[in-house]
Structure formats: structure tokens, C-alpha cells
């Protein structure tokens, strides 16, 4: 357990220091949310209606942007090879890295969401629902994204390949995240139905993501 804890703490420390890019995602999120009213117009009623969707899209894109950091830096300085040859199972190492990555990039998005919700005129109760769905859904985004990040680092080609591969896989998370948020605001389905499915998606990606990402790393870097 000790090496994994050390890896987890190391990743968090690296992320919050200079060059870590933990704050970058939140800044990107803020800019996306600012751009939407500029595109669709400052109609507060409309913004209130599509607010949850905007927040979810912004969070999805922001978490995608940060994925590049997950393995690329470790690959560049060679520590990924050390992790690969270490005695701790690679799947658990991926899980530890993904957890640290979510804490430093996913959680800030969840915390920033209520503040940005104010700009979109979302009511407090609806805002609580959106924040809750983001809290439940962003781990799935990180874990699905870890597979794409592992693939693109193994292929030594990042860039546009990563979003092209990852975005279609995140469609279910987006659908149920926005649906749960909207269910809490306008109905007609109860909040619990889409929300539990969202939680199930997160758990399923927790079960599959580390294995797929570890397989991609192993096959790509051997």
C-alpha cells in the first residue's frame, strides 16, 4: 500500500506546484461558461433553462483538457517506466494516479460549478442538484479519460487524437448527468432514477478504466 500512497501524494504535490496545471481546468471552465451567453445572448430565462447543460459541457471539456497531464509528464521524465517495472500492480498505480488527478482537476470543477451557476441564473436548489451530479459524474470522466490518455501517451501522439477517442465514450455520462440535473429542476422523472444510473456509470468505469488503461500502457510501452 505504501508505494501507492507515495505515488498518490507525489501526484497531488506535483499538480499543485508550478507547472502542475491544477487551476488551469477551472480557468478554462470559467471561460467556456463566459462564452456561452456571448453566443446565445444574455436572456436570463434561456440561460436558466440550459444552465445545467452548459455547466456539464464545460466540465466535460475542462476535464478533457487536463487529461494530457495524467501520463505525459511521467512519460517524458521516465518515471512512467519506473511505475511500469515497480512491484505494485500497474492497475492500482493507474487508479492511484487517476484518484490524484481527479482530486486536483475534477474536484475543483465541482467546487467552481455553484459559483459559475450564479452567472447563469440557476436557482439554489437546482444548483445543488447540478453540483451533486458533477460530483458523481466527474470520476467517470477521469477514469474513461485515463484510457484515452494511456493510449495517446503510448502512441507518443497526443493532441487531437485524445478527444476524438474519448468524447464518444463519455456520451452516457453526459446524458445522465444533465438528465439528473434537469429532473431535479423540471421533472417529470424523479431525480433518483438518472442519478443512480450516473453513479452506476462511475462505478463501472472504476471497474473497467484502470484495467484498460494499464493494458494500453503495457502494450504501448513494451
Amino acid at each position, binding site marked *: 500500500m505504501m508505494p501507492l500512497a507515495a505515488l498518490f501524494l507525489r501526484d497531488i504535490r506535483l499538480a499543485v506546484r508550478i507547472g502542475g496545471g491544477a487551476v488551469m481546468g477551472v480557468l478554462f471552465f470559467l471561460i467556456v461558461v463566459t462564452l456561452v451567453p456571448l453566443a446565445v445572448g444574455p436572456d436570463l430565462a434561456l440561460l436558466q433553462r440550459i444552465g445545467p447543460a452548459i455547466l456539464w459541457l464545460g466540465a466535460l471539456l475542462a476535464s478533457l483538457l487536463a487529461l494530457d497531464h495524467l501520463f505525459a509528464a511521467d512519460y517524458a521524465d521516465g518515471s512512467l517506466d519506473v511505475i511500469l517495472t515497480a512491484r505494485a500492480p500497474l492497475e492500482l498505480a493507474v487508479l492511484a494516479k487517476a484518484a490524484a488527478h481527479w482530486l486536483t482537476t475534477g474536484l475543483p470543477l465541482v467546487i467552481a460549478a455553484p459559483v459559475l451557476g450564479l452567472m447563469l441564473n440557476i436557482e439554489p436548489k437546482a444548483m445543488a442538484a447540478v453540483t451533486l451530479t458533477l460530483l458523481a459524474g466527474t470520476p467517470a470522466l477521469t477514469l474513461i479519460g485515463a*484510457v484515452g490518455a494511456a*493510449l495517446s501517451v*503510448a*502512441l507518443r*501522439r497526443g493532441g487531437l*487524437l485524445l478527444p*476524438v*477517442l474519448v468524447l*464518444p*465514450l463519455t*456520451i*452516457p455520462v453526459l*446524458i*445522465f448527468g444533465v*438528465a439528473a440535473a434537469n429532473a431535479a429542476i423540471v421533472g417529470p*422523472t424523479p431525480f433518483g432514477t*438518472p442519478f443512480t*444510473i450516473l453513479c452506476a*456509470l462511475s462505478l*463501472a468505469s472504476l471497474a*473497467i478504466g484502470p484495467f*484498460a488503461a494499464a*493494458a*494500453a500502457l503495457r*502494450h*504501448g510501452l513494451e
Partner: protein
Amino acid sequence: MALIDLANPTRFLNLANRCLPWLAGLTAVLFAAGLYQTWFVAPDDYQQGATVKIMYIHVPSAWLGMFGWTLMSIAALGTLVWRHPLADVAAKTAAPIGAAFAFLCLVTGSLWGRPMWGTYWVWDARLTSVLVLFLMYLGMMTLWRTVEDPSRAGRAAAVLTLVGAINLPIIKFSVDWWNTLHQPASVFRVGGPAIDRSILLPLIVMVLAFTLLFVTLHLAAMRNEIMRRRVRTLRLQQAGAGAGG
């Protein structure tokens, strides 16, 4: 380098060269029979008129769009589990063909939708999930095109194919759920009355013809891919010899 690609595939090439003319001939015969029945035997629908005949292309395309990913998933297992040298050739060549059929399914669907629904595109659940499938095929093709070493690309593509195979039913389910939430089911009712035999029989012939077309194209594409890899290996050897000597 990829010298192992040269070892076993010779026997496969012989087999493919012997099978291909027969497969192509059988495909042509089945298409002749199926198209004849579609145009001259199958009746027009009493409501939809002649547009119902788009179905004879649309349904086989939809089936082959899904068949392509299934084939790729089996090939992915072949790459990762059994390390079969031809598995990634099969996976790579299936992607563009599957994408073509998914695209054909989308195009015929929207051509049918124009007179029937009054619009080329509706966010119907099944249209949307075929669109996502098409996008995933395109992603897979870009992945193959990003990496120059085929065996390396093959293993990465295999991991992604299997993740996609797990994800596709979930995407299908969530898009269905999303669709029923947004629009009532009255817009698009499947089946209606049970399909009459006069329509079902040509449809089965067309599905068989299209499936054989897929198999023929896939086999030919695999043959071409093996030759392409041989050319690549020869060029690398030549370049190596030139640099060394």
C-alpha cells in the same frame, strides 16, 4: 521488425485468392436476385409508397455497421489474447468497411426521413446511436492512421475496440433513455403491422447479399493490407541495406 508478418500470411493469401472469385460471384448472384425482388416483386407500402424500398438497403447497412464492430472486437481478442499475426490486419481493414455501412445507414435513413418525417435529420434514438457508432469508427480509423508501426497501432486499437464494445450497449441504452425523455414515442413507431412475407423474403435475400459483400470486401482488403505491409517491410529492408552497405 514486422518480419513475422511475412511468415504465416502466405497460406492465408493463397486461400483468399482462391475464395475471392467465388465469393464475388455469389455476391453478384444474390444481389441480382435481391434487387430484382426489391424492384419488381415486393409491393409498395400503402402509406409510404415506393420510399419503403429504401429499407432494403437501410436495414442490411445497419446490421453490417454493428457486425463490423463485433468482428473488430473478436479480432481485438485475437490480437491481445492469442497474438495472432493476422488479427490486427482483420481489425484494421474492418474499420473502414464498417464505417462505410454505418454511413450508408445514416444516409438512407435521412433520405427516407425527408418524405416521411419532413426533415432530413431528427434526433431519433436509433439515428443518434448509429451516428455515435459512425464517429467511433472514424476515431478508430484515425488511431490506425496516427501510428506508423502496424503492430504497435494494432495493440492500441485492440484495447480501444474492446472498451468501445463494452461501451456501445451502454451508449445505445442511454441514447434510448434520453430520447424517450425528450420526445414522445409517437413520432416514430417501429414495425407497425407485422412484416408481410412479400416484403420479408426480399429483405432476407438483401441482408444475405450485403453480408456476403462485406465478407468479400473484407477479405480483399485484408489481402491488400498484407501486401501493403510486405511492401513496407521490403522498403525498410532496402533502406537498411542501403544505409548499412
